[in-house]
């Protein structure tokens, strides 16, 4: 951390190289694609939109460099590359659809959404000086999140497309509010769990190796579970329910370090999923299509595996190196540009191309996790890890669904799939990660030796706290030990809170005592 300042200046070459790589790769890709689908002529509207995207990306990069100079720009270049790759394939599928008499301008729309995403990212980078501001609105975030989540159910506002009621009508555009609800719920989860993590970490009864949490701590998980099931039941949206649940369970684990929460969460979800597969025909169909995709009666059934299998045939047609952009038949698969963008890309770019895509996702996710590890305050850790894990989990459910690892969930691949709400929302996620990353990497304005000493102290404290916590949990000793553990927890909170405040030197005066008091109160 001490050499971050030097690294910052040294980074320019690295950043320029990445910028050039993205620019060259996408230019070559787009030219090749247009060469193949429209004999090399690039229609003017695409030319304008792509030009604008190039200029805006450059502007956002400069803002990033000036205002969030310590942010890890891999995230920015990664999502830009993925978005451009997605647009390329969506435009290409538009051309194929046009040839089949199904005119579509999803590709151009996606470019417009990309421009909007860039503007919003630039604006947010300028406006938000410190991500911790979001912690102050934890319950407001929850209300907004739930309101967004359930808004499609409001008569007159909600729109039903393809049998799913997960859209709302905003100024003539359909918007998928769940995508934005995801971010607000992340704010709420992160701040809630950061505030209550110790209470949740304390165990109740023990069954075998499993420490059951105390019954009264079940409250939040029940509420969230109920909300997710509500989404699942009312909107028939298995994927979104799963995603929220995964986000919450992940953050819960990061906050408490207790595997029991994961196991309980998993059991709850499996129970709900089993219930759903029995009660809702579309969920049951998807499970059936996953178990026996190639059986002829499943293949031919209404709501059967035909779409999935057609997508798989696309992947197989792609093979190792793909058919080449514009040479395959991705549009044979229904929803080729959204739910099945992965198989469309696989068909034309091959396994090689898909591995490149997965590698870019991995870079973004690794950068996110490293950011979470580096950032000193717990809210930031929870927020960054929650957002990143949700992204990773979403990729897993989408790709896993297409490649027969799990049943299809109806989620779409972040940054690549056609759909404005998803694109804009995921760009906001990237923006948040960039801001957190900037603050995580920013060297202390005070002497660097102090920073180092503080970091070392934190590590020692955390280790000590963990050891004692475990010891305590094993032996169930009386409150004396609990108190000493609480003291060390408090010590750690002081260090957490130090980075939590605007002036890094002074500890927050209110929070640590509050936590300590709560701790004692519950454990007495």
């Amino acid at each position, binding site marked *: 951390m001490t050499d971050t300042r030097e690294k910052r200046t040294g980074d320019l070459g690295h950043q320029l190289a990445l910028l050039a790589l993205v620019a060259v790769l996408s230019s070559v890709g787009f030219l090749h694609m247009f060469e193949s689908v429209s004999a090399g002529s690039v229609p003017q509207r695409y030319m304008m939109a792509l030009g604008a995207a190039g200029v805006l990306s450059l502007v956002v990069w400069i803002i990033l460099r000036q205002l969030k100079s310590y942010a890890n720009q891999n995230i920015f270049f990664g999502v830009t590359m993925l978005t451009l790759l997605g647009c390329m394939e969506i435009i290409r599928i538009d051309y194929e659809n046009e*040839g*089949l008499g199904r005119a579509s301008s999803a590709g151009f729309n996606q470019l417009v959404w990309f421009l909007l995403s860039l503007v919003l990212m630039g604006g947010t980078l300028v406006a938000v000086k410190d991500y911790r501001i979001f912690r102050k609105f934890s319950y407001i975030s929850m209300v907004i999140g739930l309101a967004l989540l359930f808004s499609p159910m409001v008569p007159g506002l909600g729109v039903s497309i393809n049998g799913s009621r997960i859209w709302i009508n905003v100024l003539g555009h359909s918007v998928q509010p769940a995508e934005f609800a995801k971010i607000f719920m992340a704010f709420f989860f992160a701040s809630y769990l950061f505030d209550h993590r110790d209470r949740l970490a304390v165990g109740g009864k023990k069954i075998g190796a499993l420490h059951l949490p105390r019954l009264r701590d079940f409250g939040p998980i029940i509420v969230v579970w109920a909300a997710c099931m509500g989404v699942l039941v009312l909107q028939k949206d298995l994927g979104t329910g799963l995603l929220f649940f995964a986000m919450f369970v*992940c953050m819960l*684990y*990061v*906050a408490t*370090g207790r595997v029991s929460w994961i196991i309980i969460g998993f059991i709850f979800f499996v129970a709900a999923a089993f219930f759903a597969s029995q009660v809702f025909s579309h969920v049951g169909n998807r499970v059936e299509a996953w178990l026996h995709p*190639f059986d002829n009666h499943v*293949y031919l059934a209404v709501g059967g595996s035909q779409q999935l*299998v057609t997508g*798989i*045939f*696309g*992947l*197989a*047609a*792609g*093979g*190792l190196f793909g*058919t080449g952009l514009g*040479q*395959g*038949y991705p549009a*044979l698969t229904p929803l080729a540009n959204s739910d099945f963008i992965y198989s469309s890309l*696989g*068909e034309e770019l*091959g*396994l090689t191309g*898909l*591995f490149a895509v*997965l590698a870019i*996702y*991995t870079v973004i*996710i*690794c950068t996110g*996790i490293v950011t*979470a*590890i580096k950032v000193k305050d*717990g809210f930031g*850790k*929870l927020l960054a*890890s929650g957002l*990143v*894990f949700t992204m*990773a*989990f979403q*990729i*897993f459910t989408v*790709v*896993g669904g297409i*490649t*027969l*690892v799990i049943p299809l969930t109806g989620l779409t691949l972040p940054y690549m799939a056609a759909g404005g709400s998803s694109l804009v929302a995921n760009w906001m996620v990237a923006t948040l990660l960039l801001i957190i990353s900037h603050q995580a990497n920013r060297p202390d304005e005070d002497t660097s030796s102090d920073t180092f000493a503080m970091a070392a102290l934190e590590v020692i404290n*955390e280790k000590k706290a*963990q050891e004692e916590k475990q010891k305590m949990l094993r032996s169930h000793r009386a409150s004396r030990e609990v108190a000493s553990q609480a003291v060390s927890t408090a010590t750690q909170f002081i260090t957490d809170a130090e980075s939590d405040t605007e002036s890094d030197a002074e500890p927050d005066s209110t929070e640590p005592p509050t936590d300590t008091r709560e701790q004692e109160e519950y454990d007495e």
Partner: protein
Amino acid sequence: MNRTLRHIFYVIVALFTILGISSSILMVVNAQSLNSDTRNTRALYHEYAQPRGSILAADGTVLASSTESKDIFSFQRSYSNGPVYSPVTGYFSVTVRADRGIEASRNSQLSGQSSSLWMAKLKGLLSGEKNSGAIITTSIDTKLQNLAYELLQKNGYDGAVVAMEPTTGRILAMASTPSYDPNELASHNTSEVANSWTQLASSDSSPLINRATSQLYSPGSTFKVVVAAAALESGNYQPDTMIPAGSEYTLPGTTTVLPNAVSRGDGTNGQISLMNALTYSSNTAFAQLGVTLGQDAVANMAKKLGYGSTINIDGTDSIGVPMQATASKFPSNLSADKLALSSIGQSDVRTTPLLNAMIASTVANNGVMLKPTLVDSVRASDLSIISERSTTTLSEAFSADTAGKLNTMMQSVVDNDTPTLKISNIKIAAKTGTAELGNGTNNGWLMGFAPADGTPKIAISVVLHGIKGYGIQEAGPIMRSLIQEYLS
């Protein structure tokens, strides 16, 4: 919290590893079987996306070609004079893809996928041009083929004509009626194609069957050529050797009496020369001759003349589905009465029209049986030659001496028994055949070649199924017209 974050990271790595593996399994490990799934239309679209090579007649007339179309299949296959050439071309459809004929036997060359086209593929890759399939030039003579089809079609015959070049084995014409139009099956409308196909496949007249190669007929008296060859080869017989005949012959061990069709086949005093026995198609003489020669001698000659083996006409397994003629049959373990009947081409002897054309060619070609060929040359889309036909010997069935004698005897058939076949200035050698089907109708046959007194240019076999009259009456004019057309 960093410890738990690391755990989260491990979970993510595990999830992504699963995705890498699952993608690899579908895209590489299982790709082959997925691509060949019948429900997978992509392979079909890829096959259609490249212009399929043309199929040409010997003179360059286009029989089948692909032209750009404005739908998802990119290219439309079309056949000129479809029903005339369908036994040669086969068809290429969206439902069953390449089937029958050259389309099937040269599929990978036509589609441009064959490894023999690697040079063309490389050039296409470098120049950015679409990889076109190879051009297949057949040995078909358009005038002969058209005439053959027209003569069969005119009277609504159920039959086939095969014409070959005796010295090379090149097939000059191969017609079969009733026929089908491959254009009906080449439509891009899947349900339309399925309908047409069902209609053709379930039709009682079996239009999809190439009778020239895939239908077996009782050869009738044309089989006497085989028996005569066996007799001459045994060394015990000459054309003027007198053999037992008579107006009637009671099949050994039975009370069944075999008569002759014309009294000239009876001979005098129960004796007839081998030459006249063939000339007047004496049943009594050949039945007894067969019994005298014995099963082994007749069966051996039949085997040398191609009975019992499928005959490859075109293609190999590596470039498509080879075009083959069904194996003609000469039964084994015959009782004497069955041997007698078999020796006059009745009972269970079965022959394809192609084989009879090959037997006529063998007589014309000094006893050497050649492999029939349908393709003269294969050229890449830049017209560079990829492969050319070569003459292959199937068997040396009998000596040139025997061939010469059979030639004379078959000329005698035309000169003495069937003068209607005669053409001025052209010597023709032939053998008729009329196999009774037992329901009042016959299989009428004619096989022969011309010119019989010089270098033979054409050997022909005609079969008409279910006709009322004799072979010579109905098949005769067809053969005569074809020879006249080809040689004048």
